[in-house]
């Protein structure tokens, strides 16, 4: 009798184990952790030789705008950030000084020697004085225009229009003087290729106009009347070149004429000599969130490199390692 009871208990126990196993298999089995035979290892591409890293991050400054798109530095090294509905100003140590509202989203900005602020807002430029008062609104560049960069000399303003794939030269009263960089085989101008809205320009130390041609991965130097003088750059996933379909996305110029460049895809900041030779890395891809785009750049009078991180909403300041 006792033996029979033991058999029954063991049988019930086994039955429960089987039922529990089946229930686990049916309802709680984790999804198979299968390795992907078609894996595309992007992480490998984002690793670079640490000996090429010549800069160190010295400071991070939190911004308070809802979206940030552009950064610039004035003659006294104050840092300006523009974005959605406003402009924020910091002193050179990163302390917030001022903030003023604007009507729209500013994608880029430039501060001239007198402290005048030029903002690129969608299809037009708005000019503010150093106190943040609107002083002028230039005529729209057209329906499809999308101003992504501004640079100003003593007499002219240059605008990069990613929508129309052209650079405009304006006088400082807001009158358009000429268009630069449109495809012209007779003048050997290849035309700008801009697959995504990242199109930067800058003025070199001899007042020469440099424009990124991101679809061709090149920097192009133009005279003010639109003559192509020279170009450099190559597309490559390796650290010496510019990766992806449209890079560099942004650049700034150091005091010796060297180029500081930023890229998307493989998020990195690098320095090239004035002749376009790769020199060093400022920030490696692991410094940024994957997928970060629009790392705008500025350089102050001490050659500190200021990187705008729109994902982390930070101004990040990099100094050359001694």
């Amino acid at each position: 009798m006792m033996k029979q009871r033991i058999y029954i208990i063991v049988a019930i126990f086994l039955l429960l184990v089987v039922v529990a196993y089946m229930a686990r298999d049916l309802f709680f089995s984790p999804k198979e952790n299968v390795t992907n035979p078609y894996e595309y290892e992007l992480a490998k591409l984002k690793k670079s030789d640490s000996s090429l890293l010549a800069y160190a991050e010295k400071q991070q400054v939190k911004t308070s705008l809802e979206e940030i798109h552009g950064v610039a530095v004035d003659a006294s090294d104050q840092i300006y950030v523009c974005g959605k509905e406003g402009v924020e100003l910091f002193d050179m140590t990163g302390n917030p000084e001022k903030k003023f509202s604007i009507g729209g989203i500013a994608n880029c900005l430039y501060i001239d020697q007198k402290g005048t602020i030029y903002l690129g807002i969608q299809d037009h430029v708005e000019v503010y004085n150093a106190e943040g008062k609107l002083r002028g609104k230039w005529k729209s560049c057209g329906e499809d225009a999308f101003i992504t960069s501004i640079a100003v000399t003593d007499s002219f303003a240059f605008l990069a229009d990613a929508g129309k794939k052209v650079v405009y030269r304006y006088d400082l009263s807001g009158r358009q003087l000429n268009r630069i960089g449109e495809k012209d085989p007779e003048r050997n101008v290849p035309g700008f290729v801009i697959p995504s809205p990242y199109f930067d320009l800058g003025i070199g130390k001899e007042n020469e106009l440099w424009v990124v041609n991101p679809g061709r991965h090149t920097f192009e130097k133009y005279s003010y009347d639109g003559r192509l003088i020279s170009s450099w750059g190559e597309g490559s996933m390796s650290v010496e070149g510019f990766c992806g379909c449209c890079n560099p996305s942004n650049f700034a110029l150091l005091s010796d004429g060297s180029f500081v460049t930023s890229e998307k895809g493989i998020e990195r900041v690098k320095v090239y000599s004035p002749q376009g030779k790769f020199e060093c890395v400022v920030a490696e891809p692991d410094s940024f969130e994957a997928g970060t785009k629009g790392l705008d750049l500025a350089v102050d009078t001490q050659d500190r490199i200021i990187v705008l991180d729109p994902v982390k909403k930070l101004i990040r300041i990099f100094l050359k390692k001694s």
Partner: protein
Amino acid sequence: MPNRREFIQKLVRGSILAGLGLLSGALIFRSREEDGCGFDFACGSCSKAKDCNLPQARANTQMVWQLDPAKCIQCGRCATSCVLTPSAVKCVHVYAMCGYCDLCGGYFKPETKTLNTGAENQLCPTNAIKRRFIEDPFFEYTIDEPLCIGCGKCVKGCGAFGNGSLQLQVRHDRCVNCNECSIARNCPSEAFSRVPANNPSLLNGFGKEEMKGQNIKV
């Protein structure tokens, strides 16, 4: 003067007759309704479409599997988990988003030195992307669907280095619409869902409207 028994008998007979009359009327009405609904088959806005038995309504309310490119992580399981070989999931090109770039992150392997159509340069394991020169410096990329296995390598490359114009989608000229999709069961990002058969596209970004009418299974 009927007695009580006769009155009840007449009442029962009358009730049976009335019931039969109502039933016949309802059946006739229903059979007439099945012949046509009197509408122009704009079933999308019809509140009765879900329960309607008309063939036109069934075509409009049938659900099929689709994957959402916004959730897709290109894990490769679309290529390996489908009951079909090759998979019913294919790469779809949203041309309006494409930059027509020479150095295409979805076409070339990252270490490629010369940008040409050599098989050794191509990221796609089955060479299912065709590259065609348009004009300097633009190239057009088209998907050879019979060759595409839906592995998503090109989608990952295009998303990382380009505009994300290459996207994975279930192609309904191939999909057998299993009750329980075996890819959906294995999808780690739960990107699969049931969508109406007359609008099966779940593409991302601008240009998706142009692709909306493609690959409808009715």
